[in-house]
């Protein structure tokens, strides 16, 4: 280890690439993991004073494998709460019905629409959060409300599932939410999803007693388990954020391995003589290998020492932007995560060791006689494994592209990406072969000038060096062009596709609300559907469905064909349906229709009767719309563009985060390769100067060489991505049955290339200028 330390200290320059790559990798890892671990599910703050929460029993699962817990009907919940309240140690047992309320301000709905779905509560549930009145009294009559930020006696405008309402403030509360009289809240909510207990005695003993009393009718949650009651929309936001973090971590781990392995391969090639000498004075191949592992471990530890605190320090700064972009829920804060920081540093070492493995194996096979050979012949650039893997990759990638239109639609996008990755890898492996003819063509016009000749010959004899520079450029330009091009092409196609789906010209859609209220829909001419969730019993168990209520659709249920297959039902069968309010009823299947508007369609009145909180997603207008709070009318095309735009923003955010990270690693790889390669060629440049070349001329040769290498990488990467994009377009076209335009992202490709050029020129010039 001490020899490794001496080596690292002495030739830090040749370890710089590994060091920087590990610093960046560990920083991304530590930062992302800190954010990820900080983003834990948390019980809503309004249960802060309730150490014991009780949920209804699990009835089944939905398509995503999530638990379905149908609410208790109001009467059942009240009965349960009354019995729970008699248990010793229970201070209060409170049913917690929730419903949708949004404050109207100047006819416009305010606040977060998704959070508003659960902003209405019963007054008695305020104590579950430890909230108290600071003025006035509790709400008693139908239109009285207690809330924060309003004085008793004020009248406020709100929007609920039934429509706009005016309430009188009876009291001011020191916590968030709208609190109505208990009976009123129970009437509005479709059921009771939670009963909360405040306790005066021993928590564990009370929980056990509650479990015994409830039996199979419910699940008692205490301690960390309470956090399972996190609101769905919060869970979804955290899930999206987690996807980005996972993608970043995976990408940076792979990129670090890639950069470390290419850096180590180059430095091992440059140190061939030194390694041979070690072998000659008595180092076994194993000792040489261990020496390289030890050096890399040291460098990676140093890199982790710098990178881990950097990432941990950066994470809190990212919390704000992540909340703003909808990747973390409001109020998200980053906490100190020792596991993330130390884990990242440790993983950095592991990742670096993976990177050095191949180079170390090759280095250990250096024969001791190499210590005695002076000539630095560029070893053969193409090894047999490079040929085999490169050709295999190219064949597999091309085959996958050709087969894509015949694959199932769901597999196509991953097949396209997979094919592109295969082709990019193949191009990287085969690049030494492709470089020679490519350089001959590119350098043809300048073959008679001194610089042109030097650049051409320098490049053709140093194919390995050029390939090492071109490879990361190839990968980055390829990935950038492919990803941005695929998304642009699909967005273009999706716009056409979505606009074609709607028959009428205009829509009434929610405006800052989670859905349209009953009043807003009733005033409009046109077709609409009321959205609710139901649980349907079938022979394999109970499954949850997104159902729709449609006006004037006749009695009974209409099933879409795939739903019918899943339920084993057909026209005339009887369904056992459990509704949002917790009641169960039998419904006859009227028809099975492949074109049904939802998986299950019921008459609108039936849905409304069982789910007073059901909202309408949109109305297809067939006349002039009437203005209503929380609703706006717009042409179909505008709406589709808006939806795609919103989705596109999120996609773009992911895209640029990933491309930015890839480009960063490319910068490190290109910069480091050129820095090391140019530094190692100092004697060559000295000879050039002795032959009469000025510093300017040497610089020109070096810059032109690195430019050439970047150009080769960019051309290869662009070509491979272009081929893959053609494949992607072909499969989208065959799916849509009409031709679409191929969008080639010239801007993104050129921007990434320009960045690589800048890094390459600087990295090649620095060693020339530094030591005259």
């Amino acid at each position, binding site marked *: 280890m001490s020899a490794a330390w001496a080596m690292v200290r002495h030739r830090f320059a040749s370890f710089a690439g590994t060091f920087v790559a590990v610093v960046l990798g560990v920083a991304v890892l530590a930062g992302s993991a800190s954010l990820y671990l900080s983003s834990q599910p948390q019980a809503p703050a309004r249960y802060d004073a309730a150490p014991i929460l009780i949920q209804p029993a699990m009835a089944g699962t939905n398509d995503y494998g999530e638990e379905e817990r149908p609410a208790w009907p109001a009467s059942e919940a009240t009965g349960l709460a009354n019995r729970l309240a008699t248990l010793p140690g229970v201070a209060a047992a409170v049913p917690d019905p929730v419903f949708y309320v949004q404050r109207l301000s100047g006819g416009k709905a305010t606040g977060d629409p998704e959070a508003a779905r659960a902003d209405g509560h019963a007054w008695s549930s305020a104590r579950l959060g430890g909230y108290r009145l600071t003025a006035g009294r509790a709400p008693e009559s139908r239109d009285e409300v207690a809330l924060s930020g309003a004085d008793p006696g004020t009248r406020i405008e709100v929007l609920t599932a039934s429509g706009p309402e005016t309430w009188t403030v009876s009291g001011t509360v020191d916590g968030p939410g709208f609190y109505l009289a208990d009976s009123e809240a129970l009437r509005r909510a479709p059921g009771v999803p939670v009963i909360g207990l405040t306790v005066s005695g021993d928590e564990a003993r009370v929980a056990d007693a509650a479990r015994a009393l409830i039996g199979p009718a419910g699940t008692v949650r205490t301690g960390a388990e309470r956090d399972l009651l996190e609101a769905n929309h919060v869970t979804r936001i955290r899930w999206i954020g987690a996807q980005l973090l996972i993608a970043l971590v995976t990408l940076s781990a792979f990129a670090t391995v890639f950069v470390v392995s290419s850096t180590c391969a180059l430095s091992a090639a440059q140190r061939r003589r*030194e390694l041979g000498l070690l072998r000659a*004075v*008595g180092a*076994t*191949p194993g000792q040489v290998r261990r020496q390289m592992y030890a050096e890399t471990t040291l460098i990676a530890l140093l890199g982790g020492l710098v990178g881990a605190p950097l990432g941990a320090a950066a994470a809190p700064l990212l919390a704000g932007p992540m909340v703003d972009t909808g990747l973390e829920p409001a109020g998200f804060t980053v906490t100190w995560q020792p596991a993330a920081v130390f884990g990242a540093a440790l993983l950095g070492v592991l990742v670096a060791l993976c990177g050095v493995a191949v180079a170390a194996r090759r280095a250990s096979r250096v*024969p*001791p006689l190499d210590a005695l050979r*002076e000539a630095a012949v560029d070893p053969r650039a193409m090894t047999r494994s490079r040929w085999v893997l490169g050709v295999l990759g190219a064949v597999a990638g091309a085959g996958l592209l050709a087969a894509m239109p015949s694959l199932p639609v769901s597999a196509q996008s991953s097949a396209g990406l997979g094919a592109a990755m295969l082709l990019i890898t193949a191009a990287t492996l085969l690049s030494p072969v492709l470089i020679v003819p490519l350089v001959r063509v590119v350098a043809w016009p300048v073959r008679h000038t001194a610089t042109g000749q030097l650049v051409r010959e320098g490049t053709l004899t140093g194919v390995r060096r050029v390939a090492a520079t071109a490879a990361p450029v190839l990968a980055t330009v390829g990935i950038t062009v492919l990803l941005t091009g695929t998304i642009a092409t699909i967005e273009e196609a999706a716009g056409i596709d979505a606009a074609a789906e709607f028959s009428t010209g205009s829509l009434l859609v929610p405006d800052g609300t989670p859905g349209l209220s009953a009043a807003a829909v009733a005033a409009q001419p046109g077709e609409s559907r009321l959205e609710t969730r139901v649980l349907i019993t079938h022979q394999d168990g109970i499954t949850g469905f997104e159902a729709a209520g449609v006006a004037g659709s006749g009695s009974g249920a209409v099933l879409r064909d795939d739903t019918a297959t899943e339920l084993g039902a057909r026209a005339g069968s009887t369904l056992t349906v459990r509704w949002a309010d917790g009641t169960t009823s039998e419904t006859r299947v009227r028809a099975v229709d492949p074109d049904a508007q939802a998986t299950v369609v019921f008459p609108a009145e039936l849905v409304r009767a069982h789910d007073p909180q059901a909202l309408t997603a949109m109305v297809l207008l067939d006349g002039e719309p009437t203005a209503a709070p929380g609703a706006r009318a717009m042409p179909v095309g505008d709406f589709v563009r808006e939806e795609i735009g919103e989705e596109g923003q999120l996609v773009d955010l992911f895209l640029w985060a990933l491309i930015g990270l890839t480009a960063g690693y490319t910068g490190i790889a290109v910069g480091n390769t050129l820095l090391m390669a140019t530094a190692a060629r100092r004697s060559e440049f000295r000879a050039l100067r002795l032959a009469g070349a000025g510093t300017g001329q040497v610089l020109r040769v070096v810059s032109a060489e690195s430019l050439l290498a970047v150009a080769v990488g960019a051309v290869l990467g662009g070509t491979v991505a272009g081929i893959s994009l053609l494949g992607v377009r072909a499969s989208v076209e065959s799916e849509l049955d009409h031709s679409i335009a191929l969008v080639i992202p010239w801007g993104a490709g050129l921007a990434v290339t320009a960045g690589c050029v800048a890094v390459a020129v600087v990295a090649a010039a620095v060693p020339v200028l530094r030591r005259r």
Partner: protein
Amino acid sequence: MTNRATAAVELQAVTRRYGTGESAVTALDRVDARFEPGSFTAVMGPSGSGKSTLLHCAAGLDRADAGRVVIDGVPLDGLSERNLTRLRRTRVGFVFQSFNLIPALTAAQNVALPLRLAGRRPAAGEVSSVLAEVGLGDRAGHRPSELSGGQQQRVAIARALVTRPAVLFADEPTGALDATSGKEVLRLLRTAVDRHGQTIVMVTHDPLAAAHADRVLFLADGRVVDELTGPVDAELVAVHTARLEAARTVGA
């Protein structure tokens, strides 16, 4: 370990060819040679005569195509790369023309390297006494870049001697040095033979260097063609060399 019947190094009909087919070159052609313990042998010959190849094969740096090399009683054929390395580490020392010190390590660390590679911690004073022997007791903490060529070569000799090897191979050890430093290095090698009974095999093309040896082997076209024993002087060596050159020119 070493008895009278065991040579420090013995080559038995060693053949080494480079390349294949038409372009094949026979660098060593069934060479027999024996180097007794405590002897100092110079190997001479025109360039391309195979003297470096002989050294590499004898030292186990290169493998013979046919024949057999025995170092200190251990035949090299059939040894794995690892065991061969271990043998080199304990029984063989090297001095190269271009010093070949590790630039990252100090003089003392370079000298201690073979011991450390063998997993052994140098005993107190072990390294410094060897450095003192080559006259560099005060340079232990210097890196190669801070030493002159002659000093670097003396560090290399110290590194080769520190394991007390059965044989020390030197490949043109004075080739890159000026006359004074060269003489100093040769004197050191001679002292090692006289004082510690060190076996040395030295490849050189310099008759003055060869004059420090007890025996001179002459190589031409991959074969041992002549041998001088007993106290050799530079003039005699030069005469032999000239005669061989002449014979070669006539033969060609």
